[in-house]
């Protein structure tokens, strides 16, 4: 029997934002859904996240933003990903954002934004349906 390759996900906080309840829960529940998950922890830089994503050869990067820093760091992360030609890596983000910022974040290059109150099942099925590798 050919073993199906597991989806590999890297999740991370960015900058100084310390709200990590959500991202840890997401990491645990993605694992329970059969994915391989690397949680980088807090105080990560855009460069560090992208380097780790390359090292870990992940299919998905998930960012967690709860301190209003999403519009500052997203373009930096997307630029790093472009630099390394990571077009086939799915980029998702979760946290607290005003509705108005969701199209902005998507225009910046995030494939899908999950606001607080999203059910983890929704995140799991989104990843399954959209993973590109």
């Amino acid at each position, binding site marked *: 029997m050919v073993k199906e390759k597991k989806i590999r996900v890297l999740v991370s906080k960015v900058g100084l934002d310390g*709200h990590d309840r959500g991202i840890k829960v997401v990491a645990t529940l993605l694992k329970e859904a059969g994915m391989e998950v690397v949680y980088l922890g807090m105080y990560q830089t855009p460069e560090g996240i992208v380097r780790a994503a390359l090292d870990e050869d992940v299919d998905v990067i998930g960012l967690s933003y709860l301190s209003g820093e999403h519009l500052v760091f997203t373009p930096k992360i997307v630029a790093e990903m472009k630099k390394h030609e990571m077009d086939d890596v799915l980029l998702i983000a979760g946290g*607290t954002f005003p509705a108005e910022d969701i199209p902005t974040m998507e225009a910046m290059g995030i494939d899908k934004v999950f606001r607080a109150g999203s059910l*983890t099942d929704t995140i799991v099925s989104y990843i399954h349906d959209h993973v590109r590798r």
Partner: protein
Amino acid sequence: MPQIEPKEEEDRQEGNWEDYIKAYYEKPVSFKSWSGYDLKKIYTPKDRSAENYQRDIADAGAYPFTRGIHADMFRGRLWTKREVVGIGSPADTHERLLYLSRHGGSGLNTIADVTYEMGLDADHPWAVDEVGLTGVNITSYKDMQTLTRDIPLDRVSWSLITASTAASATMAQYVAVAQDAGYDIRGLRGSIQNDPIHFRYCGFRPACPLDLSIKLGSDVMEYCTRNLPKWYYTTVNMYDLREQGITAPQEVAFGFGIAMCYIDELVRRGLPIDAFAPRFTFYVSCHIDLFEEVAKIRAARRMWARLMKEKYGAKNPRSMQFRFAVHTAGCSLVPQQPFNNMIRVAYEALAAVLGGVQSLHCCSYDEPMCLPTEKAHLQALRTQQILAYETGVTTVADPLGGSYYVESLTDKIEKEALKVMKQVEEVGGMEEAIRTEWLDRQFESEAVTRQKELNTGEKLVVGVNVFTTEQEETTPLGVQRVSANSAKKQAEDVRELKCTRDMNRLTDAIKRLRDDAGEGRNVIPAMVEATRALGTTGELLGTVREVFGYPYDPMETLSSPFNA
């Protein structure tokens, strides 16, 4: 007349009668309390047969204070309407304070941003992108002057929400500025959060190593006890712990565990319990289960009274009174159908008031989206005012006391919280539970449980897993943005300040701070002097950190400018 969209009209015409009919017959999905306790269909005198009113409940104002800490409760004085403010620069924050003061707020309340809590100056490379996004950064004496400008510090009550070890710098900055403005600090009224131990669980671990948390937290407490007799020197933050997803009894038990770390240290320093305990306060969550939250507060009051009397030998009844502020539960709010948050906050605030709160912050409805807009802030304040002036809930102390249900639930929460405290003892006490990360594991597993309850529908949240609608495209009352220019200007001002201050004076002040820290003296007086010499938050804290063997900079980017 508003135009009805064709789609909407279609919905209205067809209706959804199957669900409608089903809804007619529906029962609640759960007969458990939010924390998971099975509840009976009715509580009766039989449930209270063992009750001893004088011993366990008593009138408000009498030990063990289950019904409230004052005999006349709100008849004597309403709770303090204290909305949290922190946005952009010290000047921006000052402006919002003035706005709320013009609309009936009764207590000032300012919150540090992530950079200030981490102990970083506004010009720190890690800070420049984030200054002002979640609160206010006070880097120097001058920032504190801007924040407090023209406010009568001897007459207002100010709550300074700096929780981390940076609270020591905040206290020094506030004292220095107040003194230099001519105020007698013995008359200053207010509180400082100053609970660095809990703040390691809020993302500030590099700024809050355990030994330094106990040292600096206790230094602030001791300093205030000796010099600011009207000041509440800590607000042990059970609220933030609850936001991790734990239950109501765990909130009380873990909060008390942390509180005892500080109390043990103050006792070790030779302060008699009755000399400081009357100024010990807590920050409590009010979550969405109304009765459970009221019961939790009542249980906490009884437990605290007994703990202080029996464990610490307090004699002064004021030492035994559980004083607390409430923050309505941010984690109960969701961005889906955001106006619903106002209703959630109103119920949570009602729980706080029925529980006999001393000071209240109502979340604004836009809490899960952005910092509060002016309109949202005002609406949150109005929620408090409607409770205070319209509903009549202020007239009678502990109106739910004597309810067979609420008294039984109070006993239940107390019993469960005592069980959790026992668990903490069994792992070696709170400090050990923290060091071994036992406490981290409790938070993590509870948070996963809470999420699963939503996924399976065991708990319902309107707009999340029931009665969902399309995602809104706009935020109804607008979005609060933080001006990038404010942050930039603050960083520039700090750079300017660092080039123009008297370095000889500052170096002397830093040397004294280093000596005091090294020789085990209380560092707050030296911090006050270093603040006056225009030493910054990062410099004050970095100096003490080095003495304790930690990197000068919690982000390990900068090194001390005073070691040359």
